[in-house]
């Protein structure tokens, strides 16, 4: 595979602070095509499985819901932990997210996207709402190091899809400039608004907007997302 040499980057280093992010320079070799056919197949397959589970969940099937939890909880929890930087808050949020999924699985509409995107959108919104309401900033900062160092060892890639996807993500993140990834991270993983990102970095608003836009466009293209 063309991209193999590029895959071993420390994306899993949750301890990396967004303000100290140190992406390697963009390599021309990154032009290689991602995702692979195998990954695309896995995505379709997983999407169809999760859609089946959501459909059964929508009519109250607890087993289907439990299976859905098993398939997706590490991604919801991992994201929540990264945003909230606190085990208890991340657990609370994960629980809220799955309760919301249980209640509103019938709202999922395949025409509007993949089940995982539906789920992670709900989850991220919850996490961001939570982090903003908890925003007594320094509290979160202080627990961050300890929590994150521990959690690095707990990372589990539950499925082939997740492993392949994780490798693709690692590779694709290198297509972003350091400044682009910094802005995206502050927004997505810190829960800052784009205005706050601009203030935080002391950079003009239009610049931040285009960093976020251009960075995400690269990421989207590299990961082969096209609807």
């Amino acid at each position, binding site marked *: 595979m063309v991209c193999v040499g590029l895959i071993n980057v420390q994306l899993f280093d949750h301890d990396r602070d967004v303000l100290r992010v140190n992406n390697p320079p963009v390599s021309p070799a990154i032009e290689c095509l991602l995702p692979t056919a195998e990954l695309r197949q896995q995505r379709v397959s997983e999407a169809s499985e999760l859609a089946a589970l959501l459909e059964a969940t929508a009519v109250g099937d607890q*087993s289907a819901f439990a299976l859905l939890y098993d398939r997706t909880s590490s*991604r919801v929890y991992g994201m929540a932990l990264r945003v909230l930087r606190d085990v208890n808050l991340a657990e609370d949020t994960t629980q809220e997210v799955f309760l919301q999924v249980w209640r509103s699985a019938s709202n999922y509409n395949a025409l509007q996207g993949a089940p995982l995107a539906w789920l992670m959108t709900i989850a991220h919104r919850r996490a961001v709402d939570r982090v903003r309401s908890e925003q007594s900033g320094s509290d979160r900062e202080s627990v961050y190091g300890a929590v994150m160092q521990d959690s690095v060892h707990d990372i589990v890639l539950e499925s*082939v899809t997740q492993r392949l996807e994780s490798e693709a993500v690692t590779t694709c993140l290198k297509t972003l400039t350091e400044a682009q990834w910094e802005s995206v991270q502050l927004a997505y993983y810190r829960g800052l608004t784009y205005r706050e990102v601009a203030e935080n970095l002391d950079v003009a608003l239009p610049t931040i907007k285009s960093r976020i836009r251009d960075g995400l466009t690269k990421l*989207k293209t590299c990961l082969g997302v096209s609807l």
Partner: protein
Amino acid sequence: MSIEEDSSVLDLAESYALDAIATDERIFIDRALLGLDVTTQEAFAQTVRQIQETMALLSSADSVEPAPELRSKVLSGLVDVIPATVGDTAEVIELGSRRKVWWRALGTVAAAVVLIAGGVVVGNNFQREPAQTAQSRSQLQSVEMPGGGSANLMISHADNTAYLVMSGIADPAPGTVYQMWLIPDQGALVSAGIMTSDDVGTTTRATLNDIGPYSSLGFSVEPMGGSAQPSAPPFVQIPLL
């Protein structure tokens, strides 16, 4: 809160998708969108969708296994809450009065497109044992289709219903349809509906009711309009266990 004169709402679609918009500005954008032409609205929605898909993929690289206790907590928390039907707001009702929702008649097929990626499905490599809960008589069956693609059947014995989601299957040959059959241990097969090439999308879904008496779901190729009995033995069978 106001948006700068020089910035179009469309420029904020990415930030919107990242939830990187303050609540009041989000409301402002939602309102502003209503006043824009359909093309711009769709462009905005498409960007938001794509970025949400993209960020969802990132979650694979961030995944951290939660404590096992969280699983029990989440599952035991379901007891008091029933799923809402479409359009309902969340509500809390005792399980005893749970409503059953049959939103599709036997055999009707709704073609739906999962927009993330095209291509043919090769199968599932990450099957787990079904979770043990109160209603443990549910099962997810995944099979590869002979012509490519996969079929996932979530069988809910408690509801006497199976939910079929197929991905990446080929269109039936011109002039033919796929016909689904509920197959008993003994006796005649019962048609569970047909799928024309119009019904077969990237993802194809069907809800099968009253599966109780049957032991498997089969597929055959039939002439347009379907047949009373399969013209040849089903080319694939999925157990309804």
